């Protein structure tokens, strides 16, 4: 081909077709990455959230495993030995102090496990009581959130997917529940459940130890706190069900339950996880101040709130007894909140665009 002067035509001889190997080289896809992997990657970049996550894991593991090998138990009054008068030297010990008989054993060369936080006014090891209190608080937080999640997700997805009259009725019920003062409801329910014999019903079961108040707390969570979760999920599903892939699933003949399970919930799961993570500290907080008011766990089972409440009596002499559970509550709630925020930053697709 002769090239005309000033022609813009490119000399074709300058080009040679690529070989298969070269073509292969050009086509490079990065390793398949799921939404979840991407989210975790972003989460790990967030230092605050990562540290908080480790604090939560540490506290949780401690709450689970420490009572297994700790030589003292939460309800053991160290000054009381059967057949002998009460030994008051065990009451109100400071950190790393010992009772009289323990001191004798140490003098005799024996090793005695120290009371890290001392003991309380009944001579119970305070450290293990704090650990048990943490255990109760965490358990309440997690289980209450799971109850909220299950109920909220079911109701929310039904309202969102069915729409129309079903949605209208469910949402008006939600509005009604929203308008109830929740603290009043907790207190009333705890009272009603006690009157109606919940105490007797749980007698002799594992539930007896934690007490009717905590059970009623769970029931209140189940009855009241799911509304915000269900509103959130309904909103998500309302917007997701207009997506074309939902129409595509309907065109293949998929039923409503299939579409909700396979398309709508997986696509709203990040929002759900985040709000569940933020629900946990909320529940812990509620439990703590209910216990503080004396509506929480039954004695002698401690919770962080009831420990703080008990410490109020000797506040001037033993301020540490209030400070320790307060710090633990703050640490748990703060870590969970910051971790929840980190989760939201990492997983909410609307924020990272």
């Amino acid at each position: 081909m002769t090239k005309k002067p000033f022609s813009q035509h490119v000399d074709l001889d300058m080009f040679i077709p690529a070989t298969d190997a070269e073509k292969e080289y050009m086509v490079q896809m990065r390793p398949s990455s799921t939404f979840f992997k991407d989210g975790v990657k972003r989460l790990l970049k967030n230092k605050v959230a990562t540290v908080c996550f480790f604090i939560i894991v540490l506290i949780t593991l401690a709450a689970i495993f420490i009572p297994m090998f700790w030589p003292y138990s939460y309800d053991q009054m160290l000054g009381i030995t059967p057949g002998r008068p009460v030994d008051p030297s065990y009451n109100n010990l400071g950190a790393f102090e010992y009772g009289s008989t323990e001191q004798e054993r140490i003098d005799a060369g024996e090793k005695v496990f120290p009371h890290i936080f001392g003991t309380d006014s009944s001579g119970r090891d305070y450290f293990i009581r704090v650990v048990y209190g943490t255990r109760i608080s965490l358990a309440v937080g997690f289980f209450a959130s799971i109850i909220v999640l299950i109920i909220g997700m079911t109701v929310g997805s039904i309202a969102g997917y069915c729409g129309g009259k079903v949605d209208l009725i469910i949402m008006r019920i939600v509005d009604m529940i929203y308008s109830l003062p929740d603290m009043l409801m907790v207190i009333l329910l705890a009272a009603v459940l006690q009157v109606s014999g919940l105490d007797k019903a749980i007698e002799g079961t594992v539930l007896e130890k934690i007490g009717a108040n905590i059970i009623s707390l769970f029931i209140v969570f189940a009855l009241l706190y799911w509304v915000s979760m269900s509103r959130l999920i309904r909103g998500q599903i309302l917007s997701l069900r207009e997506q074309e892939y939902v129409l595509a699933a309907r065109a293949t003949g998929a039923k409503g339950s299939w579409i909700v399970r396979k398309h709508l919930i997986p696509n709203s799961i990040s929002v759900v996880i985040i709000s569940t993570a933020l629900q946990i500290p909320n529940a812990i907080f509620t439990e703590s101040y209910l216990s503080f008011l004396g509506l929480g766990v039954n004695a002698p089972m401690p919770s962080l709130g009831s420990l703080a409440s008990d410490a109020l009596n000797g506040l001037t002499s033993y301020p540490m007894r209030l400070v320790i559970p307060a710090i633990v509550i703050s640490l748990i709630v703060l870590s969970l909140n910051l971790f929840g925020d980190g989760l939201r930053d990492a997983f909410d697709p609307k924020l990272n665009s």
Partner: protein
Amino acid sequence: MAENMDRPLIEVKDLKQYFNINTGVFKTRPLKAVDGVSFDIKKGETLGLVGESGCGKTTVGRSILHLYEPTSGEVWYNGTKVEGKAAIKNFRTKATMVFQDPYSSLNPRMTVADIIGEPLDVHRMCSNKKEREERILELMDHVGLNSEHASRYAHEFSGGQRQRIGIARALAVNPDFIVCDEPVSALDVSIQAQVINMFDELQDKLGLTYLFIAHDLLVVRHISDRIAVMYLGHIVELADAAEIYERPLHPYSKSLMSAVPVPDPKIARANKRIVLTGDIPSPLNAPSGCAFRTRCPYATDACAQAVPEFKEASTGHFVACHRVGEIN
């Protein structure tokens, strides 16, 4: 099957699809998206459906598949009426759909294998995992996707590849009939050609029948055997593809065909463009009589009185116009 040989695969009879629009508290008005549409599609044929945006093309496609419950009218598949739950469920394994937007029509949380396999799972068409996997790989091969891509997510693909995934999903249940709802309008021109040719090849290979909805007249002309022109919920003209481009009878089709870009400037300059005045009226208050009369240069008082009949002007060439004899 023998007696059905001459019957069209799909028959649509006087299909109407109204949506109730809230115009105030407790007040609704019907929006006549599709208002009495009838046509047949023969086996192995491609019927192109063209019209401007908002004329009800997509609604026709979706109503045929019963994605909306049609207000009235019938859809017949292979000589049997599609009516009732069982028939619709069965129909869904025979008629599928390819969607316009390859981005929003694929679930971002599902792998390609799961997207393509979803119809198989819904209809329990595979007895075990191995069979399902083989079927998925076969489908991916049909549409020119690499089998390594099966475990990837939709967002990792280009528009053309995503549309191929959508097509593979439509093919999964081994359908006879596919509604293609503007399947190439979201793609680049170069990719459009690939995908269109793939539709052609699949039709030859699998004996498919298409209802091809589009607004790109050149694309429709390339792929269709017959073409129907829609305006405001009505089909105004239906004829063979070549016929409708050479001799459009309805004034709307004339204007539409004159707007087809010609890739030769000399011919393009010689052609006169018929430009319509005004906008398409809202389907909420459609004009009386002939829907097109408000923009028709030939409209008379008679056009406002009665809805024109959809009748055969010459063999296989249907048109709905009162004055079809006078103006041509």
